[in-house]
């Protein structure tokens, strides 16, 4: 690969969808409209945990402009979900969180729909609620799901009452490990529930046709999963469900699962009209799929020279009233708790715990920021206690080429040491406390490139341009621009020659979806497979035209060349259309399984990190001694991306991921009081603005993966992982105060400094 000159991949070319986005012509799901469509809205629970004594929708149904009001009585009795089927479309019998859907209405105008919501009457009998992890885990705690044992679940899950999964990694002998340790450190951390904060609300338009097929235009990241979930919920075959993604205004994991699509589909079926449902900010912050709040306990044993010999860790996820992504996230978390470190004795557990709050889901690097915050905060605490430089402590323990991961996977393309050294150099680490109330923080981590399969169709048009047809959705990351760059490179055409059709479950091939930092990686590889499929046929056709052997043919500059002769791809495509049905190909890819030691895990749905990436973050910050306000001067990310497919957009992923991470570090929190969210608006839910963000210096480290196209690794999620830990360590360096709770608000710092005297 190194010997070949690259023309398209590795270049910072503009994304193919940019012109539409800067001129306002790009259509997002929130923009999508059909003539005469109705407005759908959702009636939600006002109680955290209560029996539904009475639900009266009669008055609402009779209002002018109201075309349908539906509740549990009007939909099939189905429990759905990922690995654990515990969710229903509408609450039936009882409600389990404030914001849970109880009914939905469709009306001719937004005002009529609002009036219908106001006319629905629900009478509740409150039940004892579990509003945080401690309450849910207490002996004799009320059960969020009394009937949990009757639910369908994948057998791998370990469930017990309010715990909907316990995942575990056990390596070596933890007791002996602690006996070998000279020092043992025990700490507890806590993180808050946070929202993905996409700027486009979740939206769906549904319409049924006379053949009994429903088309749903939605901003889901996973059209094929939504198709299957809708099939289950609607009791309709998947072949009758078409999910189309017009465009997505950000997702970050919050638009993976069915969100409003099912309400639109049911209301459209009931009314015989197209129905659009779009969420409000209040609904987003009270009833979406945010990141779980957590409690983390770590017990780490080290030798006096700073070798970690044993680590025991537990992380509890407050997953809300339904499992959502919780069981999987609790699994992934154990790999993050291990950290990118060589530790011979491990006992790590992740628990997904039901509470009477909104159903949590996946948010960019699910579990990453919470677990990494604990691990990397504790690394600095240990370094300080041992009198070691935190960088040096990390360098003594990090994984390197050929080492084993926590579950026995063999690690390759490990660029972590380079990331740490480069990030430290760029932040000026040798001068860690450059002034009073000023400090620098460092954190590192590792992450996966999610597997799953991707398929593409590729067609060479008679003008020599190329159509790429993929089931993946472009959620903003430019991942499909990256995949198109791979296709262009392989076919020796320009990026501008590629047109992309995507994310339509009827016309595009299957894709596992825009999740887990996988799209450019997997779709890019599927493009390579398609070209490998197409090339022999192109060469046969060309060979006949040029009078050469097919084996002598090669692609170069939009032509097939052989023995000094050449013929254009355009000519070949035209010829093939006249004689052989055109130049079309399919390509599929699935990441090969990563080998691991199954004896080390239980209850685990994600036992190894595929084509793992490694990263180090460093921050330089000041703390106001009186107010506790943190000012960020500079932020550095050194990330091993394997191969930088499009450096500009990788920088963009890193800068944006850091911004979200800094929000979680410093200001973002969905605040519950008595089971109710008290800051469900974008003023009180504080996401970073232009004025909160420092400049981010990005250093791209490239240790090529064995699997990804041109050596690429997943890029999108990792930059979201380390900011909370880096900031916590920077604050500790600046003030001496160790904050173990996220977010690290000015208030927490100021109170901490006051208490420390």
């Amino acid at each position, binding site marked *: 690969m190194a010997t070949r000159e690259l023309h398209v991949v590795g270049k910072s070319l503009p994304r193919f969808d940019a012109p539409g986005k800067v001129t306002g*012509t790009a259509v997002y799901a929130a923009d999508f409209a059909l003539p005469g469509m109705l407005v759908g809205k959702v009636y939600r629970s006002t109680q955290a945990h209560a029996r539904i004594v009475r639900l009266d929708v009669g008055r609402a149904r009779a209002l002018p402009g109201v075309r349908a009001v539906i509740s549990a009585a009007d939909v099939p009795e189905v429990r759905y979900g990922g690995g654990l089927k515990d969710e229903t479309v509408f609450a039936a019998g009882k409600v389990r969180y404030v914001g849970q859907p109880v009914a939905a209405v469709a009306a001719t105008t937004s005002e009529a729909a609002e009036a219908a919501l106001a006319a629905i009457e629900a009478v509740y009998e409150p039940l004892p609620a579990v509003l945080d992890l401690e309450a849910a885990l207490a002996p004799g705690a009320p059960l969020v799901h009394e009937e949990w044992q009757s639910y369908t679940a994948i057998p791998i899950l370990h469930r017990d009452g309010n715990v909907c999964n316990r995942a575990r990694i056990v390596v070596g002998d933890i007791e002996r490990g602690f006996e070998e340790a000279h020092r043992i450190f025990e700490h507890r951390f806590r993180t808050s529930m946070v929202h993905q904060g996409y700027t*486009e609300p979740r939206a769906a338009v549904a319409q049924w046709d006379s053949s009994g097929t429903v088309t749903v235009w939605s901003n889901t990241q996973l059209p094929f999963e939504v198709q299957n979930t809708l099939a289950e919920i609607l009791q309709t075959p998947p072949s009758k469900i078409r999910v189309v993604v017009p*465009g997505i205004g950000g*997702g970050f994991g919050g638009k993976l699962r069915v969100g409003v699509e099912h309400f639109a589909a049911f209301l459209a079926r009931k009314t015989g009209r197209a129905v659009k449902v779009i969420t409000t900010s209040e609904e987003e912050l009270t009833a979406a799929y945010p990141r779980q709040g957590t409690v983390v306990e770590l017990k780490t044993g080290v030798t006096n020279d700073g070798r970690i010999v044993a680590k025991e860790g537990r992380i509890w996820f407050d997953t809300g009233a339904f499992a959502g992504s919780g069981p999987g996230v609790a699994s992934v978390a154990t790999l993050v708790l291990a950290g990118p470190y060589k530790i011979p004795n491990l006992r790590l557990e992740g628990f997904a715990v039901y509470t009477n709050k909104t159903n949590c889901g996946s948010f960019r690097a699910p579990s990453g920021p919470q677990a990494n915050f604990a691990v990397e905060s504790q690394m600095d605490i240990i370094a300080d206690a041992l009198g070691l430089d935190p960088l040096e402590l990390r360098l003594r323990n990090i994984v390197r080429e050929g080492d084993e991961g926590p579950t026995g996977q063999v690690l390759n393309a490990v660029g972590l040491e380079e990331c740490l050294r480069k990030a430290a150099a760029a932040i000026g680490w040798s001068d860690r406390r450059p002034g009073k109330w000023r400090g620098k923080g460092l954190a590192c981590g590792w992450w996966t490139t999610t597997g799953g399969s991707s398929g593409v169709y590729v067609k060479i048009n008679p003008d020599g341009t190329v159509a790429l047809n993929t089931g993946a959705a472009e959620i903003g990351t430019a991942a499909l621009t990256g995949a198109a760059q791979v296709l262009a490179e392989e076919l020796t055409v320009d990026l501008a020659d590629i047109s992309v059709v995507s994310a339509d479950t009827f016309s595009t091939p299957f894709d596992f979806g825009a999740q887990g930092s996988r799209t450019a990686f997997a779709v890019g590889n599927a493009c390579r497979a398609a070209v490998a499929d197409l090339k022999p046929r192109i060469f046969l056709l060309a060979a006949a035209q040029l009078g050469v052997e097919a084996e002598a043919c090669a692609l170069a500059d939009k032509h097939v060349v052989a023995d000094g002769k050449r013929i254009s791809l355009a000519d070949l495509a035209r010829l093939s259309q006249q004689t052989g049905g055109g130049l079309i190909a399919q390509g599929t890819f699935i990441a090969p399984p990563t080998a691991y030691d199954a004896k080390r895990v239980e209850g685990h749905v994600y036992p190894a990190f595929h084509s793992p990436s490694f990263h180090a973050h460093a921050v330089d910050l000041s703390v106001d001694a009186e107010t506790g306000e943190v000012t960020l001067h500079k932020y550095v990310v050194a990330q091993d991306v394997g191969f930088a497919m499009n450096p500009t957009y990788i920088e963009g992923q890193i*800068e944006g991921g850091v911004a979200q991470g800094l929000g979680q570090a410093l200001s973002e929190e969905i605040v519950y009081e008595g089971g109710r969210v008290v800051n469900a608006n974008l003023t009180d839910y504080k996401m970073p603005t232009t004025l909160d963000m420092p400049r981010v210096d990005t250093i791209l480290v490239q240790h090529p993966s064995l699997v990804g196209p041109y050596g690429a690794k997943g890029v999108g999620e990792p930059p979201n992982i380390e900011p909370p830990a880096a900031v916590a360590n920077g604050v500790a360096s600046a003030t001496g105060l160790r904050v173990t709770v996220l977010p690290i608000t000015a208030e927490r710092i100021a109170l901490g400094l006051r208490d420390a005297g």
Partner: protein
Amino acid sequence: MSKVAVELCINGERHEVLTEPHRTLLEVLRVDLGLTGTKENCLEAECGVCTVLLDGRAVNSCIVLAVQCRGREVLTIEGVARDGVLHPIQQAFIDHGAVQCGYCIPGMILSAKAFLEECPGAAEADVREVLAGNLCRCTGYQKIADAVVAAGRAVAAGG
């Protein structure tokens, strides 16, 4: 509620709409006129995705009533490129890789346009101040700020 006739001037074109007086400019633009380049999100002037220019000033169209726009000039993202040629700010957003999901971008471009017409050679700190009301969740703002500063320089140089 009875409807009123409102004559609006949008992107230099006259439109007559019949609407209830409580409806916002945003709703009329998106629903009545199909101009969906102006985005909707929070509907309470917290996020800035609905930013348009009203007589040259950036406003959140989600809290402006359509009837308040009688006799005034409204510029939406659809009117920023002229004759198929991108405005220098639009081009700068593409050139600097400032576009990701793109949902905040129309509002960003209009906020930037209003500002650069006043202060073409603005420094990054000023640009960040002006764009503080436009939330973006994808980019971390760096490439957006770079794009606006560069576009401002181009405008100042008469480009």
